[in-house]
C-alpha cells in the first residue's frame, strides 16, 4: 500500500478523473446516518466506481480503504470479490488482507464469508492455514462464534482433523467452561473420518468428561456433554456405573454447586435407574425436608432450593414424576 490515507481522495491525483457519487438520503430520512467527513468522502468515491463497475487495481485499493473504515459494508466486500476475480489477484495476499482487517474487528459476518470464499478457491492446501487463523482468533476470544463456524467448515471442506481433539483439550485445559470447545469436541468425535464414531469413542470420552466434571462440578457444559455421549442409548446411560458415581461423588462434596449432579441423577432416575441405598443416603443427606420415599421427587425439592431461579422448572419436573418410578 503506498497511498497516503491522510490525504483526502478529492486531493489525490490518482482519483482526479472520478466524479464521486453522493448518497441521496431524501429530505427527512427516518434513520439519517450521520457521517464523518472522511467516511462520507470514501463512500462517495467507492460508490462512483461501484456504479461504473470499474474493476481495476485502484478500485481494489479503494475497497480496502473503505473496508478499513467499515468492515461491515457488505456491498463493498461483494464488489471487492468481483474486482479480485477480474484482476485474477493473488488470493494468498487476500488471506493476509482479511487477517489485517480482522485485527480491528473480527466480529462481522462479511469478513468470515469472504474468508470462506477465498479459502474455497484455494482448496485443501490451505486447510492448515485456516486452522491456524481461527486458532489465532480463538486465542483472543475462545468462544468466537464466527471463528468456530469457519473452523468447522474448514474441517468439513478442506480437512485437517488430525489434531482437532487435542486442540479441544488445549482449550478446555485453559477454560473447562468453554461450551464452544465442548461442542467442537462432540463435532470431532461424531464426524471425524479418522476416529471410530460416537460409540467407539464413548468410553474414553466418558472418562475424560468425568475428570472435567470433578475439576469443577458447576459446569453446565461438561454434564451436558456426558449425557450427549449416550445419545439414543438409554440403557447404557443408566447402566454405566461411572455416570451415577460421578453424581454421588459431587453430592458428597460440600465445596461446590450440586445442581447439575442432582439434575443428572434426576434424569437417570426418570430414565429407569434403580437407586441404590448409596444414592438414597447421598440425596437424603442434602434434604432439609422430610425425606420423601420417592427419591426423584425429593431430588426435585432439593433442586428448587439450590437452583431457586428455576423453581418453576423444577416444580414442573416434580409434577411429571409418576409414583410408579421407585
Amino acid at each position: 500500500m503506498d497511498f497516503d490515507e491522510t490525504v483526502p481522495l478529492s486531493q489525490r491525483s490518482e482519483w482526479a478523473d472520478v466524479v464521486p457519487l453522493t448518497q441521496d438520503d431524501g429530505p427527512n430520512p427516518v434513520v439519517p446516518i450521520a457521517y464523518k467527513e472522511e467516511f462520507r468522502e470514501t463512500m462517495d468515491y467507492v460508490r462512483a466506481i461501484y456504479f461504473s463497475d470499474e474493476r481495476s487495481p485502484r478500485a481494489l485499493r479503494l475497497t480496502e480503504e473503505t473496508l478499513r473504515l467499515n468492515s461491515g459494508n457488505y456491498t463493498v466486500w461483494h464488489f471487492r470479490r468481483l474486482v479480485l476475480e477480474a484482476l485474477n489477484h493473488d488470493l494468498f495476499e487476500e488471506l493476509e488482507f482479511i487477517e489485517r482487517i480482522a485485527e480491528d474487528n473480527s466480529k462481522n459476518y462479511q469478513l468470515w464469508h469472504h474468508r470462506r470464499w477465498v479459502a474455497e478457491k484455494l482448496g485443501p492446501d490451505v486447510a492448515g492455514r485456516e486452522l491456524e487463523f481461527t486458532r489465532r482468533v480463538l486465542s483472543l476470544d475462545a468462544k468466537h462464534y464466527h471463528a468456530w463456524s469457519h473452523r468447522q467448515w474448514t474441517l468439513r471442506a478442506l480437512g485437517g482433523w488430525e489434531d482437532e481433539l487435542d486442540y479441544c483439550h488445549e482449550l478446555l485445559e485453559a477454560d473447562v467452561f468453554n461450551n464452544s470447545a465442548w461442542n467442537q469436541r462432540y463435532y470431532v468425535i461424531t464426524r471425524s473420518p479418522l476416529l471410530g464414531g460416537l460409540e467407539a469413542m464413548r468410553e474414553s470420552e466418558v472418562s475424560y468428561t468425568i475428570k472435567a466434571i470433578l475439576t469443577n462440578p458447576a459446569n453446565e457444559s461438561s454434564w451436558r456433554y456426558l449425557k450427549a455421549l449416550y445419545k439414543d442409548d438409554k440403557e447404557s446411560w443408566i447402566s454405566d456405573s461411572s455416570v451415577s458415581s460421578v453424581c454421588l461423588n459431587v453430592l458428597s462434596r460440600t465445596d461446590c454447586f450440586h445442581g447439575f449432579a442432582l439434575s443428572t441423577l434426576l434424569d437417570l432416575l426418570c430414565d429407569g435407574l434403580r437407586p441404590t441405598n448409596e444414592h438414597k443416603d447421598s440425596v437424603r443427606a442434602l434434604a432439609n425436608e422430610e425425606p420423601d420415599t420417592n427419591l426423584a421427587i425429593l431430588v426435585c425439592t432439593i433442586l428448587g432450593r439450590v437452583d431457586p431461579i428455576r423453581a418453576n422448572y423444577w416444580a414442573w419436573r416434580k409434577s411429571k414424576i409418576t409414583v410408579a418410578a421407585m
Partner: protein
Amino acid sequence: MADKLEADKHVRYILMAEKKKESFESVVMDHLRMNGAYWGLTTLDLLDKLGSVSQDEVVSWVMTCQHESAGGFAGNTGHDPHVIYTLSAVQILALFDKLSILDVQKVSSYIAGLQNEDGSFSGDIWGEVDTRFSYIAICCLSILKCLDKINVEKAVDYIVSCKNLDGGFGCTPGAESHAGQIFCCVGALAITGNLHHVDKDLLGWWLCERQDYESGGLNGRPEKLPDVCYSWWVLSSLIMIDRVHWIENGKIVKFILDCQDMDNGGISDNPKDAVDIFHTYFGVAGLSLLESKNN
C-alpha cells in the same frame, strides 16, 4: 435502579440518536440502515409513537432500496440486495400497512430463488448459508402469504439437521447451540407448523438455564454474559414452545429496566455499557412479550 420503562425517553432517543454527525455508531450502520429503521420504527410502534415519523418518507426511502431486476432489498440505497434487508423492508411496510405497494411476485421470487438443494437458504447470490436465512426467508414469505413458493419440507429438514443434542440449534449442522439461532429455527418451525420437531422440554430447560441468578439477565450460551438482546431471543423462543413460565419473570424485567439510560434514553446490552438502537428494540420487545404474556 429503575422500576419502570422510560418510554418517552426512549422515543426521544430513537428520534434523535442518528443526528450526531461524529457518532461512530452512525458511521458503521450505513449499510444496515434498513435494519436500524426496522428496530427504531418497531420500538416506536410498541410505544404507540409510530405517528412521530413521516410514513410517506419512510416508505419511499424503503422502496428506493429495492433492486429492480433482483427484486430483493438492500440495506441502504446503493447497496446490494440481501434477504436480511428484504425482511426488514417487508416488516417496515407491514408496520405501516403498506404491503399493497409491493410487487409480491418479484420479492417472493427473489427469496425463493435463494433456497438451496438441501433446503437451506443463502443470504444472497454469494452463497453464505445460515439458519438465520431460513427464518428470514420463511418469515418474509409468510408475511407475503407466499410460503408455497419454496420447498417447505426441505427447508424444515435442513433446520432439523441443525438440531443439537442439548435440544438447541446452531447456524449450520453441528454448530454450537446459540439463543439467536434457536430463535430463528424455532420461529421457522413455528411458522410452518413444524414445532413437533422441537423437544420442548429439553430445549425449554436449556433456554431457562440462560438466566443468571445474580443479575436475572439472560445469556445466549452457557457461561456467557447476560445481554439484553437475549431477552428477545430466549423469551420469544420460550413463548413459542409454551415454556416462558420457566423464566423468573420479575428478575428479567428488572435486568432490562436496569439497562436503560435514565438520562438520555435508550437501552444497552448490560447496565454498564452504552445504549444503541439494537438493544433498545430488543429490550422493549422483550418487555412487551412479558407484558402480553401476563395479561
